[in-house]
């Protein structure tokens, strides 16, 4: 690759050694890198290599908001709300030809989106188009009529370099018996964890996706038979389910609060309708109950500031969604900017650009 080109002009073409070229490549977005695979054979190998994908993810990791509108015509859009308001329509041809009309994003991890489409599930990397169709789990299928009560999550197990889809469900017809199933992308099959644990109820008007954090998937739910709300946690490496209590004095209805990842922290957001505010609670030290702290109260003039937070930007701002806008608040709760989006967005989530492909596929 390093051939000195002799120019006729006085200026010599200065060629960078490959280690330096790689430093530059690592900072490019996925679209450019994909195009530059055509530069030459060695660039093709470098960019295709999993080590490069890993380093690129660590260094660059540009984030975007994915929105899905299922009302015809089906529209998948990628919005950059951190730097500019640039938006791109994404190709969703991989979904054809099935008649999908229902989409819920059940997780976003290392550039992959876990898309629940009622009749099946897709794992999809919007940056490079890599995708895989996953069947519903045995119980996901059997209890399909109760799908709004299902707790789905998606995460990554670094010890096996494997992605997992998890379903925590219960059977209302059979004494609320609870089941935990997981799909390993590497094993390409569903398994059930045999473990006696309670059933966990959600506010099923509003199916929640799990939040993947520190190697575990977290949901908020009510422990059946107790009317106590808890944080339910499934550790992907240990493959164990356990609970974490909510902060002391946290006495809100399940439909008024939720769990999300606020930068480096597990966090709770609470809609306070009487005061027209959103409270943000942060678990300053993971798994240390006493470290739950109310860190921010966001006010809006007339009405709740947003209906759900989406993510935190690199500069510490909060991106949320209200009826038909993406909104951005700074870490003091001041509105910075907003962007109108489709009125009929079925679901949205943040995802990171990555070059990753799925285990067992190239």
């Amino acid at each position, binding site marked *: 690759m390093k051939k000195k080109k002799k120019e006729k002009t006085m200026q010599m073409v*200065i060629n960078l050694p490959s280690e330096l070229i790689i430093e530059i490549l690592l*900072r490019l977005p996925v679209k450019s890198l994909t195009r530059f695979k055509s530069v030459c054979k060695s660039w093709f190998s470098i960019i295709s290599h999993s080590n490069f994908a890993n380093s690129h993810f660590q260094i660059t990791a540009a984030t975007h908001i994915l929105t899905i509108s299922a009302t015809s015509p089906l529209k998948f859009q990628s919005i950059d709300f951190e730097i500019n308001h640039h938006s791109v329509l994404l190709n969703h041809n991989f979904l054809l030809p099935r008649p999908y009309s229902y989409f819920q994003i059940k997780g976003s991890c290392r550039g992959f989106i876990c898309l629940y489409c009622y009749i099946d599930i897709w794992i999809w990397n919007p940056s490079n188009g890599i995708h895989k169709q996953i069947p519903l789990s045995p119980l996901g299928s059997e209890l399909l009529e109760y799908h709004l009560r299902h707790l789905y999550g998606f995460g990554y197990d670094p010890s096996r370099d494997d992605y997992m889809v998890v379903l925590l469900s219960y059977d209302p017809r059979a004494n609320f018996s609870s089941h935990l199933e997981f799909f390993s992308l590497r094993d390409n099959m569903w398994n059930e964890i045999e473990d006696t644990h309670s059933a966990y109820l959600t506010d099923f008007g509003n199916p929640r996706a799990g939040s993947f954090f520190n190697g575990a998937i977290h949901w908020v739910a009510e422990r059946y038979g107790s009317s106590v709300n808890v944080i339910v946690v499934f550790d992907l490496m240990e493959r164990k389910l356990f609970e974490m209590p909510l902060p002391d004095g946290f006495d809100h209805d399940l439909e008024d609060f939720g769990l999300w990842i606020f930068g480096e922290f597990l966090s709770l957001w609470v809609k306070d309708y009487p005061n027209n505010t959103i409270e943000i609670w942060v678990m300053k030290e993971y798994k240390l109950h006493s470290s739950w702290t109310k860190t921010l109260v966001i006010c809006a003039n007339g009405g709740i500031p947003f209906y759900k937070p989406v993510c935190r930007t690199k500069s510490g701002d909060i991106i949320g969604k209200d009826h038909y806008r993406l909104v951005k608040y700074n870490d003091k709760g001041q509105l910075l900017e907003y962007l109108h989006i489709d009125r009929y967005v079925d679901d949205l989530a943040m995802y990171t650009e990555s070059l990753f492909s799925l285990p067992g596929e190239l």
Partner: protein
Amino acid sequence: MAQEASSSTSSKTISLKTGDGEIFEIEASAAKQMKTVQRLIDDLGDDITIPLHNVFSKELPKIIEYYKKDITGEITKDFEAEFVKDLNDDEVKVLFLAANYLDANKLFEFLSQNIADRLESKSVEYVRKYFGVENDFTPEEESKLREERAWSFRGIKEDE
């Protein structure tokens, strides 16, 4: 908050000599940020003129300007934008190589990102020329690659 160092020890300057024989002064605290320079100072002492064979009089002042701002904590996004504004792609490349040679980490990372930003929407041909890379794909291989990744070529002008 720039504090002018009045005491002699903290405002010590180091003399640097470029590959084309010119001499520039830099504050010792700024020199510390360039690990290559610091190593040479450690070996040769800080009283003699430090020779930098691979850095030239066109680039060194610019690098010194950057680190002058760095030691007073004044590097902002605006400063960095201004810093590279008038440099063309080749000039940035030379500066980048110099930052690498000097082991000036902060400048190196900034310039890596700046070059990446400049190349983001460029064509494959431009990038080949920029890095002096030969195309070793056959025409058939290349057109197959482009076809498979047509989406990544969307909106890219071929002659830029």
